[in-house]
């Protein structure tokens, strides 16, 4: 059994966000973090390793600096890591990205007892599309939104979350699972792990390593969706703000509710 974890380095959108003059995000000035849901995916893989001793491999697509994130994942407990990097991958939408990652996973070899974990979604795009699309390209089952998980023989049993229920779903390996934050509490890096991470070899895959992917499926030209326009969010703007004592505040709100025929 080998477990693959697909991870993404993302700008930290929860803090102060820097925006360029043209309205696009100034990524260079922002901190990068490991996408939070992907940490849950990594923890799920490491929990399986704790029990079975299986090999855990982290896989990411990104520019060379993403290697640093892969080292952190090795420090958490991953055995090895693959960086998929190349200029021809730039501008990929979720369709092209999932083709590229699926191509790399095919090169690594997805065996009959293997499991692939992804985070549910990344905080920069929030699409939740790449995981299920990878499964489709690989022709394996997908269980999205996992909030609980265990291995039973050759199957994975997952609590699959919906709005008002969960399904207990059993899938045969190999399969792909997308992890929710609810699935677990990601562990920290260990001192020994940090030490190991310095020596660990991080393999870089380029176009040549991808299996079953056509040149026309890569990057911008491999992306069916095209950006027509990107801009800073236009807010409706603030109304009026008052700073009054409690009595006057209540009278103010009451007045507005009356004026607007709410009451």
């Amino acid at each position, binding site marked *: 059994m080998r477990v693959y974890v697909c991870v993404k380095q993302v700008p930290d959108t929860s803090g102060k966000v820097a925006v360029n003059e043209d309205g696009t995000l100034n990524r260079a000035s922002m901190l990068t973090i490991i996408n939070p849901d992907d940490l849950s995916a990594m923890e799920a893989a490491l929990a399986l390793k704790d029990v079975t001793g299986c090999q855990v491999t982290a896989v990411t697509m990104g520019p060379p600096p993403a290697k640093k994130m892969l080292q952190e994942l090795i420090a958490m407990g991953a055995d090895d890591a693959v960086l998929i990097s190349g200029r021809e991958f730039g501008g990929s939408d*979720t369709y092209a990205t999932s083709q590229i990652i699926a191509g790399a996973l095919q090169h690594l070899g997805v065996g009959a007892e293997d499991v692939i974990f992804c985070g549910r979604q990344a905080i920069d795009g929030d699409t939740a599309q790449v995981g*299920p699309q990878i499964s*489709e390209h690989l022709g394996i089952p997908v269980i999205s939104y996992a909030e609980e998980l265990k291995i039973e023989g050759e199957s994975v049993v997952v609590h699959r979350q919906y709005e008002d229920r969960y399904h207990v779903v059993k899938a045969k390996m190999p399969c792909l699972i997308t992890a929710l934050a609810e699935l677990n509490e990601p562990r920290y890096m260990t001192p020994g792990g940090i030490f190991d991470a310095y020596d660990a070899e991080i393999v870089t895959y380029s176009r040549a390593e991808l299996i079953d992917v056509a040149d026309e499926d890569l990057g911008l030209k491999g992306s069916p969706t095209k950006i*027509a326009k990107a801009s800073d969010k236009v807010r409706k703007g603030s109304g009026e703000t008052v700073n*009054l004592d409690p009595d006057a505040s209540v009278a103010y709100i009451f007045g507005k509710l009356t004026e607007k025929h709410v009451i």
Partner: protein
Amino acid sequence: MSQTVNVEDYKGVFVFAQQTDNRINGVALELLGKARELAKDLDTDVTAVLVGSDVKGLANKLAAYGADKIIVVDDRELKEYKTEPYTHALASVIDEFKPEIVLVGATAIGRDLGPTVSARVKTGLTADCTQLDIGDFPLAALKGREQKHNQLLMTRPAFGGNTIATIACPDNRPQMATVRPGVMQKIEKIADPKAEIIEFDPGFEKNDKYVEILNIVKSVSDTVDIMDAKILVSGGRGVGGPENFHLLEELAAALGAEVSCSRAVVDAGWKPKDLQVGQTGKTVRPNVYFAVGISGAIQHVAGMEEADIIIAINKDETAPIFDVADYGIVGDYSKIVPMLTEKLKIAAAAEA
């Protein structure tokens, strides 16, 4: 990627009519409303794709909310949502009927089904759209570059709501989008609807991609859906603790409102997740939204800024919630809210 050979062959606006337990999901009706606008711009019609087991009886409701045609895929394999048979059903409908647009609700089902279907039929998918229009791509005519007309322009927030992007899918068909529940408006119910019903059976053969559902556990919840509320009293971290929420509940009771909350409140375990408003919670558009002790992180604002009237109460006059509030009150909610509740009660008693 390889482009769709004949884009012109693809006609009509299709809506995936999500049902669970043989009940149509509200977002399907909302999408039918939007589909009618798009179909009018394109001079075409609206088709609902109804997938399930023993679901034909739901067709009339889809017609009443704007479907001109209903394609029914009915099979025992489709009783509960499972990715593979549902993907096979919707992808087969697309291959057979060739729609130019397919809309899917961005629900826990749609955000799984949309990606697998789009990958299978080899087209693009834009997630969590908040606006859909028909227009030109590129938006402006550029010298030496073909400008395509009658394209679906899909607008969505990105980077946690910090930017918005408009996306097109010019060379592949269908153009697919998922849309968050609560964003589009359903039409007034048509009294005596007429729609053509087409039964379609793509055949279901089990393979390795079929999963087995061992059990279904429905959450027992007596809370109402905050997305249906006309007035919401929403609390954030600034409320101070779960023991203080009764102040908000009492105000809600006096207004005939419901209580909702921010992510911080859910993360702290003060309130359940189904009350959460925001990017990772629900999108609400009530008539009045009270933001009490909510700082107004952009992820929260993304879920409530469409409210007609936003009233914010916060101690911190620099809180970003005041940037979106129609009426901002700098002050201590724990004094203001109970006094307001009292005043509302007295006013109601005087009227009765």
